């Protein structure tokens, strides 16, 4: 479980490195508690783009309602990736 979360975090950081509005310097100390809006100054419009890139990176699909409920912390998106993987495995 811990390994899975760390693997996802590493992949997520790779995704964030491709996002123009994310300052690479702020990616050095990202943890699950890092808040995209408060700590990384990510524009709220960018969160949807990040979610779309995460889908591609991890080969998963989020539902529209997932994104409505998504919080702004790194752990929230990790939780969502795990949920999407679980849903895909159950299908």
């Amino acid at each position, binding site marked *: 479980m811990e390994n899975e979360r760390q693997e996802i975090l590493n992949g997520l950081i790779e995704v964030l490195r491709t996002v123009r509005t994310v300052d690479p310097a702020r990616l050095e100390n990202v943890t699950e508690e890092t808040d995209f809006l408060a700590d990384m100054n990510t*524009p*709220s*419009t960018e969160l*949807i*783009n990040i*979610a*779309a890139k995460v889908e591609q990176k991890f080969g998963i699909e*989020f539902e*529209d*309602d997932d*994104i*409505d*409920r998504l919080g702004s912390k790194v752990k929230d998106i990790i939780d969502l990736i795990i949920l999407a993987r679980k849903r895909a495995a159950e299908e």
Partner: protein
Amino acid sequence: MTPEDLRTVNPAEVLLYGPKKLLLDQYVWHSPGVGIIGAYEAKEKDTEDHYDVFRGVDMIEAFAQATIVSMGAYLERAKGKYTDEELREMFLPLFIGVGNVSFHHYIKKGETFISMGHITFYKFRQMSCDGRIYKVPPGLDLVDYFSNYTDEKLKNYELAPDFKLVANLEGITGRAMKKETLKNFI
């Protein structure tokens, strides 16, 4: 049943806004998933206390209503197979962001303008549009004028020279949010 496009639809049936806040009279062209053109005539209510001139901030709102809100509602309706009524019950349109906007001219009371927008991003009920606002030559039948318009012409803003450029807008972004979800945030 979702109409083929919004051209024959009354904007008041698609959008949530009441008459004081609705800044869209008619859809004059629509290519689902690509772009749209909506028209509005500046009314007394829009220009009073503002020297008979339509406000710049209202141009952004009018553009958003004609483009991201209308096309978002149309696509969500088609995807979810909702009726307009159900859509209005379930969702609220949220203004998420405005990119670069520059104004080149102005609109006075009684003048008609068109908002021409094309989709640059649409996913998870969030839509971004780029586009322009043009003042319409007086007396022009817009539905007839745009009857053979194409996606390509929209993207190149192909118009007769007597349309006057009023504003250029980029990154106008909004999102349809379920009212049920919003209750958790408000």
